[in-house]
């Protein structure tokens, strides 16, 4: 069976969980003799995917190339006239300095500035876009707060958005079967200001659809498998042209990320893909129901394939290194609406009445971080809170290892891999019931994200009852070994087969 998979990113250059999920899934599928062409907007050359053919949509070469030497992008090589908007931004919000999304954006902007200076607009050097997870609100709020003036922001963003596809703009109307609302090809001058990030993302989506279509023209596939809304237009276009069945895989919905503040254009692209698809894959029953509620897709058209994790040895140690005396309760993730940070803060205030020396760590950055800091101050619990910003690498390991409890209070979480990571560090976890991962976990405490009293009670219990912690950790260690990508592939392949049988 030969399939075309449409992705948006692939490790190591990833901005969220989607790339990691694609790596795990394709590896397990390939072991089961599924032949895969995997298309991403562009390749960085560091992708390690010997199990399949990985293709950059914008490239003419079929396999991962050696990295193109990146033009130096020291500040000195930027346009001399520009005040350094980046420094301004970081000065206004220090947490951004360690935010991977932001730094990726900033680097991309720098790279573009350099590239424009040297080779014009023919080189595509940045990711097609900074992803589904990039939070537009972060930037909008920064502008609104006056921390950054609009033109400086526009310059940063315009730098990212000024990458046309190879070929003249005239070719950009090539989509016959897919429509991308909000895609705007009229801008061409990055210095004209007024760049709207959102418009640009849609343009990138449309561009990806067109270049992907061109890239695979003439190839034969049994099935087209598209991951998340950014690849749906490409999937629809390619599947229609090739007469192949389309399977769309929903890792998250716009509703998950934004709730009722959902971008209607994104919802519309999602809808188009769901309608055109022969079959839909959801990463959880939670997501399956949400797709049904938000888009009206019939439940019997949606199959559930739970994500897996890469198992690894559990990590000991670090516990002596903790800096606080009291027990540590950890939130680790983007500090955004979707992740429910305010429920963590509210639960913390209640826990402190019972466990006064508890320490709450909110690790991560995002648009709600300033509000969370203000909330902690209003509640008078600043002394019990730490905000280390985004953590990675050894610091991430230390953060997990020194926590006594990990809490994921997400408002809407299609799957949620972080609790599994915490479990691999032998940490007991509390997960919201509004998450896909809660469906596959027995050895975690579960709570409705809004039920802060119960969340607090669970935290207190985990801190006060060593027997509870002991039993959970011991059983969870065994449990996560069974949540792997092989199981996902075993569930997915029969879905493929049933589609091919018609």
């Amino acid at each position, binding site marked *: 069976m030969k399939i075309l998979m449409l992705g948006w990113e692939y490790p190591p250059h990833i901005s969220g969980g989607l790339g990691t999920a694609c790596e795990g899934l394709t590896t397990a599928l390939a072991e089961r003799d599924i032949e895969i062409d995997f298309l991403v907007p562009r390749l960085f050359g560091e992708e390690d995917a010997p199990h399949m053919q990985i293709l950059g949509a914008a490239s003419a070469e079929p396999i991962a190339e050696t990295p193109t030497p990146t033009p130096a992008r020291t500040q000195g090589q930027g346009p001399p006239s520009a005040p350094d908007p980046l420094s301004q931004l970081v000065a206004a919000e220090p947490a951004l300095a360690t935010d991977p999304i932001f730094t990726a954006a900033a680097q991309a902007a720098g790279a573009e500035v350099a590239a424009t200076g040297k080779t014009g607009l023919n080189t595509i050097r940045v990711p097609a876009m900074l992803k589904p997870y990039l939070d537009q609100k972060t930037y909008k709020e920064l502008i609104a707060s006056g921390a950054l003036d609009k033109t400086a922001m526009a310059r940063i963003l315009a730098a990212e958005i000024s990458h046309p596809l190879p070929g003249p703009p005239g070719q950009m109307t090539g989509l016959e079967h897919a429509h991308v609302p909000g895609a705007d090809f009229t801008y061409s001058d990055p210095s004209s200001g007024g760049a709207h990030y959102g418009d640009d993302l849609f343009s990138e989506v449309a561009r990806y659809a067109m270049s992907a279509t061109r890239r695979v023209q003439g190839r034969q596939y049994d099935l087209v498998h598209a991951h998340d809304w950014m690849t749906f237009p490409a999937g629809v276009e390619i599947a229609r042209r090739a007469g192949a069945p389309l399977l769309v895989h929903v890792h998250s919905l716009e509703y998950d990320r934004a709730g009722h503040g959902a971008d209607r254009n994104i919802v519309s692209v999602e809808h188009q893909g769901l309608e055109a698809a022969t079959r839909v894959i959801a990463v959880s029953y939670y997501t399956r129901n949400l797709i049904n509620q938000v888009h009206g897709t019939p439940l019997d058209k949606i199959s559930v394939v739970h994500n897996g994790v890469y198992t690894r040895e559990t990590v000991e140690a670090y516990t002596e290194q903790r800096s606080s005396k009291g027990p540590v309760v950890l939130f680790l993730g983007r500090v955004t609406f979707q992740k429910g940070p305010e429920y963590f803060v509210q639960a913390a205030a209640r826990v402190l009445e019972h466990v006064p020396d508890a320490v709450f760590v909110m690790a991560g950055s995002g648009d709600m971080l300033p509000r969370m800091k203000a909330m902690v101050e209003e509640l008078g619990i600043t002394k019990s809170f730490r905000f280390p910003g985004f953590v990675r690498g050894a610091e991430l390991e230390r953060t997990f290892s020194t926590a006594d409890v990990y809490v994921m209070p997400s408002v809407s979480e299609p799957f949620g891999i972080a609790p599994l990571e915490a479990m691999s560090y032998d940490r007991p976890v509390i997960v919201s019931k509004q998450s896909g991962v809660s469906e596959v976990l027995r050895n975690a405490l*579960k709570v409705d994200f809004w039920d802060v009293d119960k969340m*607090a*009670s*669970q935290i*207190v219990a985990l801190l006060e009852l060593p*027997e*509870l912690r*002991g039993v959970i950790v011991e059983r969870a260690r065994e449990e996560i070994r069974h949540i792997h990508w092989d199981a996902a592939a075993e569930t997915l392949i029969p879905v493929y087969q049933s589609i091919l049988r018609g």
Partner: protein
Amino acid sequence: MPSVCFYFEVHQPYRLKPYGALQVGRDHDYFDEKLNAEVLRKVANTCYLPANEAMLRMIERTDGRFRASYALTGVVIEQMKLYAPEVLDSFVRLAKTGSVELIAETYYHTLAALYDKDEYRDQIEMEMKLIESEFGQVPRVFRNTELIYNDEIGQLIADEGFNAMIIEGADDVLDWRSPNFVYRVAGRDMKLLVKNYKLSDDIAFRFSNKDWSDYPLTAEKFAGWIHGRSGAGDVVNLFMDYETFGEHQWKETGIFDFLEQLPDLLFTHPQWDILTPSQVVDRYPALGELPCQRTVSWADEARDVSAWQGNAMQQRALAEIYSLGSAVRRRNNSHLLALWRRLQTSDHFYYMATKSNFDAAVHDYFSPYEGPYDAFIHYMNVMKDLNLSVLATAEKQIQL
């Protein structure tokens, strides 16, 4: 002349309400009255009332040759009085037929046999008084909570003066012996009636299981299996939860038809009859001693006590509750004593079990909570409040 002996267990615990850490020190009302009332009324309608009617009909139709025995815990009788008094009336009617024997157990369905012998004896005595006052019978046969048994428990019950005790027919305890004979407690002159778990579980667990090779189980087939034991034993003991009829096995499975057809079909073989446990004791001699060093029960595949004390959470909770014994008794407060005893009911610990596979499914089926961890959290929060608020306050009052 071989016999069949039916014994049914009737019990409902006082389930704890979801009791969070934030309630400690503020809320001294521990039980989920609404849920407990709901469950009792539901089971009354699905099982107790229709099953009792079926039993009455069977007794009338066979001129009293159909017989059965029941153990009703004190806590289920209390709840019947509170939430569905007609159920208790219907059991009293059954008891008055002369074909139904009441047997004894502990009032609170406790695990005290393993932790606090004085408490254990007190609860047996309470139950004896209750059964006599409600049904006008003085039980001669005893069953321990969940058929938990070892030599020591058997000897204690013998010393309490019972004629017989009902136990699980675990393979390793029976060894080469058949469950279809009467045995004797090691070192005492008290008889043991051993559950035939194969035939009992065919009804209680497998009746509606479509994956079972003998599905569907008809009364003809089952009576045939019993008759096949002719000459190979004195008594086939069919012991199970009464809720098997209509609750664990829904009415739609045909369980009531099966039950009502069974006596007539059993009687088609002229040698077989149906006896109550006391009649079995009076008719059949003990074949020999049945020593039992390990503690057995009728729960889970292991048929041991791991269903209640298998993990560290359960062990902690049990240690907590039984450590309060002397403090509670010192208060000499009947309300507090009853509260402590309700918290001893084995179901609380059963909900905390972390078993896997089939056992887990059974534990989940019975649990009112989302899982073992919630069960443990609620229980320990209640214990904390009991210690902090109730016991500490009582201490102060005594000092005053």
